[in-house]
């Protein structure tokens, strides 16, 4: 399922938004988890899903995922420090949990892993409805060591659920490098569940998109789940404020040379889909959009005590 011209521009734009979010938020908040260098996976996964599909994003890239699904940037950014205008009105954080009304299942606690199971459940709901909807779950390579990964993927395999599991494999978990996280390769786990596994260059947004959409199409046809291992690299720190002293500067430098945005832009230029002027204009437009949203969000009000809602914990009929 190769991306058409428009898709390629849209993928580029989504990568630019992702990077600009990092720049703007990272400057304001040392606790922000940047996706710097991983934009190919972020955009490749989150662009192109249909209404009715369930999206279960990795926390790193959550805001971009919500944006890709039509979320309002100002409201999403207002959720970074819990402002009243955010989707949750300040009750929860937007950097790890997107709004359900966009078909997004976020992390409703600090625990990594269970969302893969929620994705399996969303896929089960889709299977029961038989309208061709799918669930796409994205997770980190570190998260893949949690038992939830195993239970979710196996369950999806056994029940032949329309689910796509994508590892946003940046080869690190906080400070722990790949060889300290998992024996073997993540992609090689697919065989153990009897499902297709595909290794893809995570820094090639078109390749990621094609792999994900291929697996999505398979799922829509009722042929069951797939596992995609999208290999990329976390160029930034675990958090914006993390100097990353635990790894070699050379390694980081090498991966910077394979910047997914630069690579894709070159391709677009080479293919004549973009010229230098339009490329710059796109960057500017994105910067303006993100900047304006951030500025607005930052002056949005904090929630009043009415939002606390001690009596609103349970849903009423």
């Amino acid at each position, binding site marked *: 399922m190769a991306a058409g011209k428009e898709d390629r521009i849209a993928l580029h734009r989504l990568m630019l938004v992702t990077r600009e979010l990092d720049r703007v938020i990272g400057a304001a908040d040392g606790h922000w988890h940047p996706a710097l260098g991983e934009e190919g996976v972020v955009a490749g996964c989150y662009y192109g899903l249909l209404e009715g599909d*369930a999206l*279960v994003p990795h926390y790193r890239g959550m805001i971009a995922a919500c944006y890709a699904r039509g979320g309002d940037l100002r409201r999403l950014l207002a959720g970074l420090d819990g402002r009243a205008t955010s*989707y*949750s*009105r300040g*009750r*929860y954080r937007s950097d790890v*949990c997107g*709004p*359900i*009304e966009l078909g997004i*299942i976020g992390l*409703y*606690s600090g*625990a990594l892993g*269970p969302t*893969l*199971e*929620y*994705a*399996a*459940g*969303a*896929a*089960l*709901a*889709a299977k*029961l409805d038989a309208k061709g909807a799918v*669930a796409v779950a994205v997770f980190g390579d570190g998260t893949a060591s949690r*038992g*939830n990964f*195993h*239970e*979710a993927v*196996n*369950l999806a395999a*056994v*029940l032949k659920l329309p689910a796509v599991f994508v590892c946003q494999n940046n080869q690190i978990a906080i400070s722990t490098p790949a060889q300290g996280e998992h024996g073997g390769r993540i992609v090689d786990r697919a065989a153990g569940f009897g499902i297709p596994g595909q290794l893809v260059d995570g820094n090639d947004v078109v390749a990621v998109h094609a792999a994900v959409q291929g697996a999505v199409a398979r799922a829509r046809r009722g042929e069951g789940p797939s596992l995609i291992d999208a290999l990329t690299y976390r160029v930034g720190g675990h958090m914006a404020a993390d100097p990353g002293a635990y790894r070699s500067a050379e390694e980081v430098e090498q991966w910077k040379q394979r910047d997914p945005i630069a690579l894709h832009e070159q391709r677009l230029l080479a293919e004549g889909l973009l010229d230098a002027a339009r490329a710059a204009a796109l960057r500017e437009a994105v910067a303006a959009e993100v900047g304006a949203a951030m500025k607005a969000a930052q002056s949005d009000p904090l929630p009043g005590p009415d*939002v606390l*809602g001690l009596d*609103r*914990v*349970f*849903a*009423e*009929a």
Partner: protein
Amino acid sequence: MARLTMQQAVVEGIAEEMRRDPGVFIMGLDIGRFGGPLNSCKGLWEEFGAARVIDTPISEGGIVGAGVGAALMGKRPIVDIMFLEYLSLVLQQLGCDAGAMHYYSDGRARVPLVVRAKFGVGPYHGHAYDYHAWVAHLPGIKVAMPSNACDAKGMIKAAIRDDNPVLFLEHMGLYHGAREEMPAGDAVVPLGRARVVREGRHATVAAIGAMVRRALLAAETLAKEGIETEVLDLRCTVPLDRAAILASVAKTGRLVVVTEAMKFCGAGAEISALAAEEGFGSLKAPIQRVAAPNVPIPFARNLEKLIIPDENAVAAAVRRAMVA
């Protein structure tokens, strides 16, 4: 009307809801052709088929998690985790995450999920642990524990219709016990309303699940001694019927709390603390808790029997309260 055991009543309640609402489905280990341990799902697979009565691998976190995900997408899943002893395996998904979703989403997310679990010392030897206080500690999830077959049917129906996650507890000592006449029609027993099962004016015994019957037996004995015991079937730990507890304490001035779970930090502590805080003015005597001691459930039948509160323990506690 049919006379049903608790096991049958729960299954009938589920079947009625599955007929009513195509969004209701059930999953769990060995619940299909096998019918579930202790027949917990007997007959459902035959009526509704494998698409809605789903056999799953041994992945408790996975299936409860899948229940959460399906519920978020608008279904009404029931997940049978076999035994409450496995609650720890699903506490993150069911308790911490699912319980918080409605609140954290500012009311947008709903998780109409029922998790069923068997527990309790009974004819079946093992898997008796009652860990439900863990879930009661968490916001946003309800905990129901019927003491009889009629309530079991009405409460499972309420649980399935509830828009919140509900932990539904089925006591193995009651499961295949006495048959009861089911009420006619679509009888739903709302979650969170206690029932006065015996009126009395000298002391209140607040009990739940299998302890209700023991409280009633104790009350009979005590009646012969001139002590009129009011017995309250709490039915749910969450929502807890605070008003009913406080009203009864206001009337009797004496409170005995009876649970099968371990005493320390169990749900009985919450009920006692509630009365000590909000019913203190009426209290004439120390609040007694009757519960299992904090010791792993011993296996030998004769030792096991020593730790689960029986009617004598309840009666003794009421007498202690009367003396004080």
